[in-house]
């Protein structure tokens, strides 16, 4: 951790020997240090916060000074450079599942039998050469079947 910068006394009648004010200053320094603000700006903020705290409630220096600092920081834009919304502009579009028919019967009938039948029909009506070939296959097949059965 970096060491806090040396204290610069605010021009007011705050009693810096008082441990509660010293603690408040140290805590404010830690806070602005964690924000990584430019040194001059940080000092000015601490100074202003302490002045406000002293004017408001000198009995509770830590709490009032921190409140005052945060109120001052809220006026500063942006307080932290990277603190922005992390996504681009929304442009919504649908993404919904398409219907899936997972039935084995549907698969058997529509994706195995149907294409086979259609293919055979296409073959049969595909021209003379196909029909002749089919005739040869039928004759040979029938002959073979007849031999087996006999």
């Amino acid at each position: 951790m970096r060491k806090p910068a040396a204290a610069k006394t605010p021009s007011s009648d705050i009693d810096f020997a008082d441990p509660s004010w010293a603690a408040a200053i140290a805590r404010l320094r830690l806070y602005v240090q964690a924000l990584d603000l430019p040194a001059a700006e940080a000092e000015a903020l601490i100074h202003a916060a302490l002045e406000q705290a002293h004017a408001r409630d000198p009995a509770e220096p830590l709490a009032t000074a921190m409140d005052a600092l945060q109120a001052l920081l809220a006026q500063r834009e942006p307080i932290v450079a990277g603190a922005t919304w992390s996504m681009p502009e929304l442009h919504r579009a649908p993404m919904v599942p398409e219907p899936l028919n997972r039935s084995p019967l549907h698969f058997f009938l529509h994706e195995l039998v149907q294409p086979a039948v259609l293919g055979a029909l296409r073959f049969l009506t595909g021209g003379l050469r196909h029909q002749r070939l089919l005739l040869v296959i039928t004759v040979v097949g029938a002959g073979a079947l007849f031999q087996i059965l006999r």
Partner: protein
Amino acid sequence: MRRNEFKHEPWIKMAAARRSLFLIFILVPTFVASGYMAAILPHKGTTFLEFLMVVVFAALFAWISIGFWTAMLGFYTLARKVDRFAITRARDEDHTPLGPKARTAILIPVCNEDVTEVFARIRVTYESLKSTGQSHRFAFFVLSDSGNPDRWIEEETAWARFREELGFEHIYYRRRRVNLKRKSGNVADWCRRFGRDYRYMVVFDADSIMSGPTLVRMVQLMERRRDVGILQTAPSCVNRETLIARVQQFANRLYGPMFAAGLHFWQLGDAQFWGHNAIIRVKPFMEHCALPRLPGEAPLGGDILSHDFVEAALIRRAGYGVWLAFDLDGSYEEVPPTLLDELKRDRRWCQGNMQHLRLLFTNGLFPAHRALFLNGFMSYASALLWFLFLSLSTLEALLEALIIPEYFPAAERSLFPNWPVWYPQWAVTLMISTAIILFLPKVFAVLLVYLKGKTRQFGGMVRLVLSVLAEVAFSTFVAPVRMLFHSKFVFITLLGGQIGWGSQNRGDEATTWGEALRFHGGGSLLALLWGAVVYVVNPSFFWWLSPILISLVVAVPLSVWSSRPEVGRAARRLGLFITPEEVERPAQLKRLDELTGTARPASVLGVSGFTGAVVDPRIHRIHLAQIRRPRRQLASIAQRRQELKERALLEGPSALSDKEKKELLSDPAALQALHRAVWQLPDGEQARRWGLPSLAPA
């Protein structure tokens, strides 16, 4: 549903021819080997037990033949140096800059990962992309499903720092409040919100790295080939140091290219999508790849776990091709560091792959993708089949030893005795044939490296050969352990057992003896009992079974030693399992090494995670910018949060559970109040619990 404009692509006919050839290569030897197996058995496969053994053997032989022929065809493809259907030889290819419409999103889904490492990898990819001069066409999206509140805040902080340090605005961060459908749901959520703005998306895993030129090239290829829906790269496994991971990396780098080329040979435009290191055409993906919930409950119903195979099948169903760019380098991933991590991952994958069986008959899918579903299932079911085969063989051996054969069965009325004959030499022949199928691809991989003059990338020829021998020995020892676990996974899933889906361990953390004993002790005990029974009843069969049993018995020390990075490093010093990335570190990996060693703390106060969001004003404000504005709350909710805040203030952050921390982190008003209250804490123990240093002067 199906786009017909790509129906007549020239590769389709070639794919049919190649797959027919591939099928013949598998089925013919399987048929011959199964006949041989039946002939070896004492009753020639005529008893029910022996018939079952032959059937299981046939399935296993076909399964290993797929791997063998894939490797051989890969060797053929790579040795020829040219494949006119390789996707990288796209038509009308040129290298013009990417057009304005070729906007590409790089999606990095994360879930409780090491944030420093994830952002280091993103940075490496970004810097490499920037060097191409095309980074303005790309945007990065870190999509978080992290449930751990500390990781959530660390991710936001790392994102803000990345933007600030690199001045790159097109990196975005989103954390989902509800992690519906895990990674696939995360990507789908992104598509619904931002997908319209991008033509392509490149999906990463948390451990992915890709080089800029590779990313640009992938977009160029997609621009040239409108028929391609998904283009998958074959990532190189890198960066692990444990022994098992180094063996995996070596195997991936030596055999991987050959297998990838082989897969490309027979799959062509029906390839697999592995879920990461791939580019996807967003529009058709959104139109056709949304995943439904499967009817019924997990493990086989509910959300689809292994989404990638299904998405590939669906985009192909829509008419777009899925291609494997096997020859595109510059794509990296990491392997699990230990055997236990690998097995945990496998358990998830096993469940996912078994779910795919329910999609096997889905209308409109291409036969190749149905085959890939079966192939994925067989990746795990083959283990159960192997286990079944060993069990049946043992039973057969025990029965042969215990039951006196009937030499003259009454039914046969023969003068000659019916001898149950067992020819050990035949069994040896079959075993050698099986070994050839398993190990010949490794020899060919070495040959390929030699022919391409790349032996130096593996530490030289001598070290390469020694590494292959060591890898074979190691794999032989680990295979029975994997077999036992995978069998268990399949069995549990079939019985309805559920599987957790936590984040992966990506660090080199060694397995402890206790963990190893808990996971492998049962298997070792089983092997001891199995071996004892077989040795007593049929000692000759015991020696056949001994390699498997010994592997199971030594599983505990094997798992522990192989998980140790120092053992992996010692192997490296000996010149074993050297990979090309270790010999000559690619620029991206060198840069990653630099970045991982120089991580800057997130806060000057030394706090991070939830404590950082409460205490550090910078982290606090970064976080506030990401959450919803304060909303009206029910009195009961406001009251509960007030109590949480008071407890946290009093007892420190450790007093809150993760759920309570997330509740506070999601409520800007409560978080701001806690922030103020913490900073107003007086110096002392309470403030120190929140990481605030003492205010007393040193």
